[in-house]
């Protein structure tokens, strides 16, 4: 079905909300081990596309193939169990649980047949991996935004995904936090997890992505390595507004 190295393939994806077509006939492929950036102006349909992949919404047309398996009709929990993790644009943590509990829930439910002891081990390992150890005792709503987003990433990582989809992980962060987040994304990729990320922070997207795809009004208008995208006249026109 799909070629060996394409872990996730979207083929002719269309999603309509009433009369509005949010995503229109979009096809893309995600290659194993890469960081693929998904960019586009506000309202371009990026998050809708994410939601369709993760099963949160069902695409009206087209198919998603994950490791050779068509996953269109699956619910998010099943898609998570297959190995596709995601975060949300506005962090959706469990507010009354401690940071550690937040991550532990991901470890406990993310894979079938997970034992409590194994989940505990995985939790500690994941927290150390994303560097949240010192926040163990802090109530989640009191943590800085960057750390709240990091909990989301940690919870998704604790489900042991093969692909992680990050929805605007760097929005609202200060420059120091952005560069930490970039390091984390690279670290995730180096650990063998393929990354698909929506991002508006250009500096980040241009320096860490292997390839970029661009959406505009729900349509895929460009695809290629960062340098090519940055110099693509069409992209500059619709997305960067011709200022660069």
């Amino acid at each position, binding site marked *: 079905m799909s070629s060996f190295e394409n872990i996730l393939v979207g083929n002719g994806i269309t999603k309509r909300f009433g009369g509005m077509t949010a995503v229109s006939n979009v096809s893309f492929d995600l290659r194993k081990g890469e960081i693929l950036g998904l960019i586009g102006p506000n309202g371009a349909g990026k998050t809708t596309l994410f939601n369709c992949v*993760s099963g*949160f919404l069902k695409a009206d047309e087209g198919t998603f193939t994950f490791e050779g398996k068509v996953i269109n009709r699956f*619910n*998010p*929990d099943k898609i*998570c*169990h297959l190995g596709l*993790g*995601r975060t*949300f644009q506005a962090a*959706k*943590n*469990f*507010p*009354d*649980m*401690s940071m*550690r*509990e937040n991550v*532990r*829930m*991901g470890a*406990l*439910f*993310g*894979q079938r047949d997970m034992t*409590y002891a194994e989940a505990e081990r995985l939790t500690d390992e994941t927290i150390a991996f994303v560097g949240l150890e010192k926040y163990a005792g802090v*109530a989640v709503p009191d943590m800085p935004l960057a750390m709240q987003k990091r909990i989301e990433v940690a*919870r*998704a990582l*604790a*489900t042991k995904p093969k692909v992680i989809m990050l929805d605007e992980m760097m929005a609202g962060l200060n420059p120091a936090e952005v560069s930490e987040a970039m390091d984390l994304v690279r670290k995730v990729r180096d650990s063998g997890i393929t990354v698909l990320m929506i991002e508006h922070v250009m500096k980040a997207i241009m320096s860490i992505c292997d390839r970029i795809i661009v959406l505009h009004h729900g349509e895929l208008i460009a695809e290629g390595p960062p340098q090519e995208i940055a110099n693509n006249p069409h992209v500059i026109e619709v997305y960067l507004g011709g200022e660069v």
Partner: protein
Amino acid sequence: MELVKKVFWETKAAKIQALAILAAFVFMMFIPSFSGAYPPLFLAWVMTYCTLSISWTFFSGKTGYISLATAAFYGLGMYLQAVIGREFPLGVTILLAALLAFGVGFGIGLITLRLRGIYFTIFTFGLALFLNRFFHWYEGVFTRTKGRFVKTFDNDMVFYAVLIVFIVTLVAILLMNKSRFGLSLTCIGQNEDSAQHIGVNTTLTKVLAFAISAAPAGAVGAAMISTVGYVDPDLAFRMLASFFPVLMAIFGGMFSTYGPIVGAVIFYVLQDYLLRTTNLYMVIFGTVMVVVVLVLPKGIFGLIDSMIAKKQRGYSGEVIGDV
């Protein structure tokens, strides 16, 4: 087994909890032998409200889906007792009532738990009203009666039956709270989207939990109506029975299993006292309720708990999950 050990054995608090429940159970078993005729009946009602309240809190307190269907399941239990109570021993009817409530709860859950927030609440509210009307219609058209007589059982026997239902419900809920199932319910209440995306089958979990929380209501309905001896649709499906568990849980504090019990005990004792001594029951009761909600948002148990927490940890505020 691992779970039983975790909840009732592993820590000092777990052992105290196990001992306390066991001691209370044994003590209660002996009450009818030295008390008069009234205390067992009084305690059976107290435990009935405790059961309704903790089982309501198990689903609604955790998930945030406020159910007003308690009266429906409670009433179905009563009617089942009225219809088949003569043919079976009390224990069997109670078990069947629990199964009936579970089945109806499961069906209703499948239809309604796609609804979120207030729509779910309105539907469950309508369910009890619908059953009330349905039984009126059925009795009016087919049996041409108003209500039915119910086989009565000895108060002591009903007391034992309700005691067992209550203890079983309590132990089951304590175990489920610490299980994967209970944790997934908490996740749903905290953020349903996130829960789904970390691999929780939210629909199945919600439907199952709703059905489980319905079962004890059916069981105590079947038991208690046999102390009354008569049932009709207005008695079985009265909306107050849906609101009481909610109020008791708020009153006692919803975040802990023991909160609703504390709430239900105080609530019932207060109600009993006020009804016997004054005409101002509703007025006084309403005032107390408003004061509790305003002053103690976490209920009476919440106040006790945060006082203990303050002493132990130097600050108040609790983190759910791994406590």
